[in-house]
């Protein structure tokens, strides 16, 4: 989400290594302190067209695009 650019100095597109969403978040936290915590505090992730509420262990590969989105529930 664009909110997170506050942590990245405005950068919107990042290349990050990691085999799972959690590993990607860990590397983001190292590079941009606070970003990992913000992502874990309340984000779902859209991966391959599916929204995952708890994406920590969802596998990703070099072609994967991760969309960090607001936690979705519903009525």
């Amino acid at each position, binding site marked *: *989400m*664009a*909110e*997170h650019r*506050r*942590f990245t100095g405005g950068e919107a597109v990042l290349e990050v290594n990691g085999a799972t969403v959690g590993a990607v978040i860990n590397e983001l936290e190292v590079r941009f302190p*606070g970003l990992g915590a*913000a992502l874990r*505090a*309340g*984000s779902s992730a*859209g991966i391959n*067209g*599916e*929204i*995952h*509420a*708890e994406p920590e262990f969802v596998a990703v590969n070099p072609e994967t695009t991760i*969309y960090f*989105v*607001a*936690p*979705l*529930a*519903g*009525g």
Partner: protein
Amino acid sequence: MTATENPTGYKWIGTRPVRHDGYEKVVGKARFAADLDLTGQLYTAYVRSPHAHARVLSIDTAAAEAMPGVKAIVTGADFPDLDPLDPNYDVSINVMARGTALYHGHAIAAVAALTKAEARAAAAAVAVSYDVLPAVLTIDEAMAEGAPLANEENYQKFAPPGDPTNISTHTPLERGDAAEALAGADIVIEREFDAAHVHQGYIEPHACVVDAGLDGKANVWCSSQGHFMIRAVTAGILGRETSRIKVTPAEIGGGFGGKTTVYLEPVALLLSEKSGRPVKSVMTREEVLRATGPAPGCKMRVKIGATKDGELVALDAWMAYSLGAFGDFAGMVGAMSVASYKFPNLKLEAWGVLTNTPKTAAYRAPSAPHAAFAIESVIDEIAIELDMDPIDLRLKNAAVEGDLTAMGMPHPRIGFVECLEALKASPHYQSPVPEGASRGVAAGFWFNIGEQSSATVNLNEDGTATVLTGSPDIGGSRASMALMTAEELGIDVYAITPVVADTEAVGFTDVTEGSRATFATGKAVVEACRELIGELKIRAATIHGVEPDQVEWIDGAAHVEGKDPLSLAQITEQAKRTGGPLTATASLNAAGAGPSFAVHCADVTVDEETGQVTIIRYTAVQDAGTAIHPSYVEGQMQGGSVQGIGWALNEEYIYNADGVMQNAGFLDYRIPVASDIPMIETIIVEVPNPSHPYGVRGVGETGIVPPMGTLGNAIRRATGVRMTSMPMSPPKVLARLSENN
């Protein structure tokens, strides 16, 4: 009426059996939480804040405790202090204030007494002294520079550490260059919109009965959309082990998102522990309206540009949602819900804003109706300006698989185009607009979600089945579970008993929300059935003396070449001899909930002397993926439509200058009744969701998204006046007509 993409040939899926729980509900035997009485139970009454924002200086309960019949009183001091980062922190503060009342009606103390009258009298005798603080009541007030804080403990989410603020979230989304595209567009329309808080209007007030045992274990009976959630949040707020609380779901008299959180149970549990008696707690209607969660209000500015051929080239939108006194994600979700059209250029800024009003809660497709009202209204203005059919304009720009939502993620297989085409071909749209009336059209989208579900299927000795799930049935899901079981096992749907089981009888299951029950819990039921069929084939192989791979399961019987088929009942009656009881359980975290689209059409007349809008015909079209039980899909579509009509035309929280709701009852907070609306005609579109074994998409929420735009567009075409403020009630319509004249 259905428009089926893939004729299925199913035996049970798509049929309309009478719901299994129907008889008891029709004759009044179904038990809701307020129907339960335990020997020696106490009744509660609450002390609630008379101020929208105030420091609680002292609470003196001495006089109340000495009154007849009073057995226990709790205040915020009886609750453990949670870490502010604890996920239950805000809910904990909302169920009982700690030091500060954050809205009018915020709970300050609760009394348990032998009778309701004694509880009420004692609550009135609790002496509370307040230091009244400035209250922030509107989005403009909350966002003004130097505004007082609505909640001193709120910090902006997803932001580096900062000072407390009235902002919960700020979501900028952008792709392409909206400013440049708008500058080059042939036509640009801009409008500003606003909407009041509205309540879900469920008929059954919140209620629970709690019996805390001397062994530290508590039994809770309550009405909710998720009894595992009630258990988890109650345990979390009170610092208890989850396993020490058992929650038994009562029937639910409507939820619509409003019963996805906790209000009464932790308080009743503390009162039960203090008194040593069961405690029954039932809200009044006034309490429901003053102290539970309405949907947010909003302010929006939407600018859309298009070519003269009707191609939408850019959307520039500013959206703010008023969340009540606690932060949440409604603003972000509102931005994310912009997903119906292929805007190549988009600039969207959404805010979630705190006010000293009740903590808002989900309401069918939360946040989406507001955004759809604004965007669908402006799109209709473009259609009028270009003299284009409103469906054709939408068809030209409708999102399809692979198109990007506002949040950037591409759509999976969706059925928006199919919905638009179905409406265009419908008897309603094909009929001439009645004389004196005008016709409006609008669309809506909702994500739908999956989440965790569990199911246990027990085969009984006589060949019947009992299906246990943890999903409270708020829209006919028991019938859907039975139909999927019947289809899988090949037995009669009435040979199946679907049960909503308590927290100790079935695996963990998330809340019935996000239109997820038939999708996710249905998947668990299908998985359990398929495991059972594997075991049934093994048993049949044992009986016939063949290998399991020689057995086929066809239409409720095991078939082996050269042998008579063995029915399910013939296998279950021999279960003891072939390996014991036949049962299977499946638990899963379901991904792949298919998004759902809807398109509505209304014919209305507008009384230019009174401003009264009368709906004379209304049609709802929606993609259900596959309609497991079409009657309950239609029921959801009709229910969502009617609630959306109420939201659009009548309903609003009216606060006075002190933040006190002026219409806290159904006489003054007017939801639609049967005489207000025509029969809602329905057209189910079926574009199967590839992530569900039968193609199910959730259907509970999308139906509330299009009505506001539909009616606003119909009024515009009837009067030439664009209504931009909800509700579009007679006084507002009249005022706009007067301005226009």
